């Protein structure tokens, strides 16, 4: 089939020294992946095109890049699925990471964040002589997370990292969950308390805005955002609830569980803490703007109709907290 691959090029050593688009019209097999098209270009058309790739079967994690604006593995994306009605595929380097050359990005910060979560098992107590005896379900659950190949697709499309490079990000947090959810890891009664405490800090689990981009981008079904939400549950359960994120969650849950809707006046107050005067004062400008624009929530928060139904639902959910 005939198609055009539009590649975002960048070479720090040559003019124009800034990114530009280049079109490569090529002819390739119907079953070709996007990676096959790029390898074809590199080998047969333009040897100066740089990209990382190795296994061609979605296991090495080298070829994460943005295809038509969204991160994915070039080797796992069929060219025929990716091209638009004019036969065009747009390929550019992964986002949220500095570009080294063409489709190659600098992953130094990505790896530093992985190292930051202390990514190795910390068993409590002495090791058994033979293997740890643990339920298969626990291992199967973990394998859903260890399926992560560290390709960086989730980090590329993370909307928090776009504005806050300090955020640990979806890959490192999913990696952290891989340990906090491991029955072999822990520092007290099977809970990885120290990990959860550190991960509750600024830049950690509470900084995710739940946009869901990482779940979309992940080529291995790891669903990093879901793991971050699971971390939050673990942290609150372990008693690390003295922070804005945890309080926000609890106030939110409590309000909906009680009245069936969100008490928008109370939420910010409960999030920062009723005694946190400086933070509360910080809300004043927003409150005033809301007032002058007629957007201030009602001062008296009312229950919704059929609130009993919501309360029942809430109660049921509370009863079904997932266990480690």
């Amino acid at each position, binding site marked *: 089939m005939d198609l055009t691959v539009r590649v975002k090029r960048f*070479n*720090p*050593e040559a003019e124009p020294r800034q990114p530009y688009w280049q079109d490569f019209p090529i002819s390739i*097999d119907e*079953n070709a*992946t996007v990676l096959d098209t790029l390898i074809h270009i*590199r*080998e*047969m058309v*333009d*040897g*100066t095109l*740089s*990209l*990382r*790739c*190795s*296994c*061609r*079967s*979605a*296991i*090495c*994690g*080298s070829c994460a890049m943005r295809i038509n604006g969204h991160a994915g593995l070039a080797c*796992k994306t*069929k060219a025929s699925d990716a091209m638009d009605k004019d036969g065009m595929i747009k390929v550019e380097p992964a986002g949220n990471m500095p570009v*080294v*050359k*063409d489709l*190659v990005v*600098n*992953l130094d910060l990505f*790896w530093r964040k*992985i190292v930051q979560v202390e*990514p*190795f*098992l910390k*068993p409590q107590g002495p*090791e058994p002589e*033979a*293997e*740890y*005896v*643990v*339920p*298969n379900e626990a*291992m*199967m659950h*973990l*394998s859903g997370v*260890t*399926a*992560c*190949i*560290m390709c960086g697709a989730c980090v590329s499309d993370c909307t928090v990292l776009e504005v806050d490079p300090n955020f640990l990000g979806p890959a490192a947090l999913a990696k952290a969950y891989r*340990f906090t959810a*491991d029955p*072999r*890891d822990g520092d007290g009664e099977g809970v990885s308390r120290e990990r959860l405490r550190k991960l509750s800090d600024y830049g950690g689990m509470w900084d995710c805005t739940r946009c869901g981009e990482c779940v979309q981008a992940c080529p291995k079904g790891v669903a990093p955002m879901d793991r971050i939400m699971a971390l939050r549950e673990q942290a609150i359960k372990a008693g690390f609830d003295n922070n804005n994120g945890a309080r926000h969650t609890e106030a939110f849950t409590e309000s909906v569980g009680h009245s069936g809707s969100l008490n928008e006046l109370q939420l910010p107050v409960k999030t920062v803490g009723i005694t946190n005067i400086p933070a509360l004062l910080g809300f004043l400008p927003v409150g005033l703007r809301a007032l002058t624009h007629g957007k201030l929530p009602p001062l008296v928060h009312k229950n919704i109709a059929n609130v009993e139904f919501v309360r029942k639902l809430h109660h049921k959910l509370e009863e079904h907290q997932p266990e480690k």
Partner: protein
Amino acid sequence: MLEHDVLIIGAGLAGMRAAIAAKANGANTAIISKVHPVRSHSNAAQGGINAALTDRGDNWEDHAYDTIKGSDFLGDQDAIEVMCRAAGRSLIDMEHMGVTFNRDEEGHLGTRAFGGQRRARTFFVGDFTGQALLHVMFEQLIKSGIQSYEEWFVTSLVQEEGRVCGVVALEIRTGQLHAIRAKTVIFCTGGLGRVFEPSTNALIVTGDGMALAYHAGARLMDMEMVQYHPTTLAGSGVLISEAARGEGAYLLDKNGERFMKKYAPNMMELASRDVVSRSEQTEINAGNGVNGCVYLDCRHLGEKLIKEKLSQIREIGIDLAGADMVKEPIPIRPGMHYMMGGIKTDVNGLTNLPGVYAAGECACVSVHGGNRLGANSLLDTIVFGERSGSHAAAAAGELKFVDFSAAAAVQREEQRIQAMLNRPQNGDRVASVRLGMGESMNRNLAVFRQKTGMEETVQELQELKARFAKVPVENKGKVFNTDLVFALELGFMLDCAETIAVSALERKDSRGAQFRTDYPKRDDENWLKHIAVTKGEVGPEISHLPVTITKWTPEERKY
């Protein structure tokens, strides 16, 4: 100058295991790899890792016998004993490090059946065991704080005073060359799959270590023993794990017949890989295949089992061949997969060069002999990675650094590389030369071989080497110049290809992965021995080495 007691080249499973062992033994250790460690090809091992656990009623001697029989009695039995004895401990160590092995109902490690073995002793993580092990080993590498030079490509060894005393490496991101001094060097560079086209192997698997060691005077052994995996996907040639057959999948011809009953009535689809691949190729050649393939049928295993234990290969089938194994048989064929041969070492990983070690696929201990059993390769990397790391660290304690000029070493490489970059355009391409090599190897050194075909390849390799000497490198830049890296890799691959072809020509019998239609029988009287090859003045020099037999007498192989 950068300097380390132990420098490990390659950061796959063997390399990282070696590094961790060397560090644990007190050596100043560093690891250097042309890719980031988790991009290494150990990832691709899908099915599992073998170990005979005594608390299951298994024993290492049964594992050893299966391995020896699988090797067609070419494996060195002392080395196989070492590996099979160590397997249980190595496996449990990996579990303690955090590998999420599948469990049985009681929560103990679960097993699956694998080819060429009389009982299920393959431990696994779904169908991505290699990835699971590799990432856990990387975690341990982080924990140990070992210096890691990532995306540094070793282009040559430095030899002075009769010793390998360092390396010169290209930092791919900047294009800068560095000299690193080392008391001992461990090659853990993996296989050479890309010498063949197609191959299941990743694009980075280019025989760098074997070629570097060969040039430095190391002995390569069993290079004729190239494993063709029975189930590689039609088209792309990507691997479909033996785990599928381990879980009970059938191989079918175009009429839906399980043809393996003709070739291995007892073990059927789970005969050793060389036997299954040969049977498939025989059927395909007889016109019983479809478009050069036979079928792998998993439908009767059921959707639940496939999703739980074979999810990755199901995805590969859907992504790359448009076939869902839950609903239909998928077309497969034998494809180049693994190199049994490599840099000859003793059971401690030591080569014939002082201070130079090797472990993993690039090494030949030889535990795989003529044919490797599935799930013995991960075991090989862990056991001999650890042994070579420990021994290299101990040896380094007795050695002094050899003083050499870093500037001179770097300059030599700079000049060589600049000369490559300066070559004028001549219409030829690195990829064309590589393809010529790969197709020639796959035509004449595949499942069935014979003299004239192999001679043709030897001749073609000479022509390709001549082309290689003039092939232009299009990218002249410094930053992430993969074009240059491919050219350097191609040089390594051509050397490897030659050693394979001459070794295969030398062996005049059929054994393990080598089947010669002009010598179709195994001939223990004349050929129960290893073929070794070293670099001579004008080309490869062949010698013969004895096979170590401890207590298992060679016998006819039947499955």
